[in-house]
């Protein structure tokens, strides 16, 4: 039943739109590594609602054509260095957004509608950066209203603690992954372990489970979220992250660092 991270990566074609979780929500670094290995290119990343290490690694390796996100960073370690360089060079396009606009776009896709109205945001210069958003009077209140289009990623890729043999994946309270799995055309997940019991058979587990209905492939990848860590399982590898943040500032040392990362995994 379960696949390998390399098999997941092989399913993602060049040019695909790929939704990725922020560093705190379940990152399949194991599959990101395989995307870099296979020389993926032209990917368009969507942050849920922001992007972190996964995006910076893919950008450093030249796999990315564009990002749509509310933010991109290495968290406490500051700016995402490879992204920052690519942004300055103009080699990666940035569709600027804000967290609730991404949630609304995914919700529109989840519900099969073209758009969703979004509260707030009017008054921000962000609206001027988004010609695909619509401003106009709200048909019910007459007040100024903002409509944001559906976001339907080709793929959602994430890492979680457990799946079962039927391909149901437990995400607990990381419910942005549920929303994204509903919105995305295809969902790929790596997990720490595959358990023998049916996750849908007990409501305690089922309440935090993405049904197999939405999940195309599951791969087993112990420590698959390292070095960013996985909630309740293992923390971030702070030394690795600091070393990356430093090395990635320079193209040559960034390449050396990533080559070593590919070799080690």
């Amino acid at each position, binding site marked *: 039943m379960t696949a390998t991270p390399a098999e997941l990566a092989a399913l993602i074609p060049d040019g695909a739109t790929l939704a990725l979780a*922020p560093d*705190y*929500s379940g990152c399949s670094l194991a599959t990101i590594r395989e995307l870099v290995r296979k020389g993926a290119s032209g990917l368009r990343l969507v942050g*849920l*609602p*922001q992007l972190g290490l996964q995006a910076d690694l893919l950008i450093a390796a030249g796999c990315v054509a564009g990002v749509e*996100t*509310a*933010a*991109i*960073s290495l*968290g*406490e370690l500051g*700016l995402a260095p490879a992204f*920052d360089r690519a*942004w300055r060079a103009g080699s990666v396009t*940035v569709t*600027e*957004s*804000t*967290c*609730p*606009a991404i*949630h609304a776009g995914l*919700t529109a896709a989840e519900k099969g509608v073209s758009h969703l109205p*979004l*509260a*707030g*945001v*009017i*008054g*921000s*210069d*962000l609206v*001027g*950066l988004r010609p695909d958003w619509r401003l106009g009077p709200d048909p019910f209140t007459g007040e100024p209203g903002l409509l944001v289009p559906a976001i339907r990623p080709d793929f959602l890729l994430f890492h979680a603690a457990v799946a079962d043999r039927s391909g149901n994946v437990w995400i607990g*309270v*990381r*419910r*942005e*992954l*549920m*929303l994204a799995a509903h919105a995305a055309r295809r969902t790929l997940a790596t997990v720490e372990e595959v358990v023998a019991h049916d996750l849908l058979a007990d409501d305690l587990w089922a309440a935090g489970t993405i049904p197999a209905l939405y999940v195309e492939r599951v791969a087993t990848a112990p420590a698959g979220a390292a070095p960013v860590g996985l*909630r*309740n399982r293992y923390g971030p590898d702070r030394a690795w992250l600091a070393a990356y943040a430093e090395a990635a500032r320079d193209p040559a040392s960034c390449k050396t660092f990533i080559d070593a990362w590919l070799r080690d995994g």
Partner: protein
Amino acid sequence: MAEPERLLVMIGVIARLLRGLRHVAVGASSPVPAAAALVARELGRGRPTVSILGSETSNPFTDGGRELFDCAAQGRLDAFFLSGAQIDATGAVNLLGLGEPGRMRRRFMGNFGAPYLASLVPNVILFRTDHGVRTLVEKVDFVTAPGVEGRWLVTDRAVFRRQAGRLRLVSWHAGEMAETVRAATGFAFETAHDAGETPGLEAAAAAQLRGPVGAVLREVYPAFAAQLT
């Protein structure tokens, strides 16, 4: 970041602003507001409820990343905190970058949820722990979120509040004067007629920081917690 004593003054100011509220959320990388909100909660006997994003133990949300934003739109979030690469005389913040929008010369992390929360949360408190002329400017390059009347700005030097369209100096912290604040600020401002020195952190609040609040801070912001004590 500023001297510990200045951070304690900021915590005291913000904790007082939160008194009587029901629900306060603190974004990622906001140790001073987190400390202030937790102090306010302890002194208010559990009120306000405090949600700290990025914390695994002080985050009550169970519906994913969207819940904070939905919660704000429902009117269930009374206060939130924003910093900004630039904050201007009108209380507008810029989280995105420097230069002309669409052709920026420098980009920061991004707008996060600020464009939305700033217009839906009734009490958005601005903060900076490094008050200076490059961050406090006459006009932001990019309006992540516009300013609104009555908005507070709390820095490591002073407290401002917007009235009649512009931030006005309300108080300066011990060791500052209106003139030293003016010299460190990139926008012109008036001084409130009753302006004076910012009250220090109350003893009861300080005790909370040494006690239960400190324990929570050590989980979420270990480096910051160590700095305070």
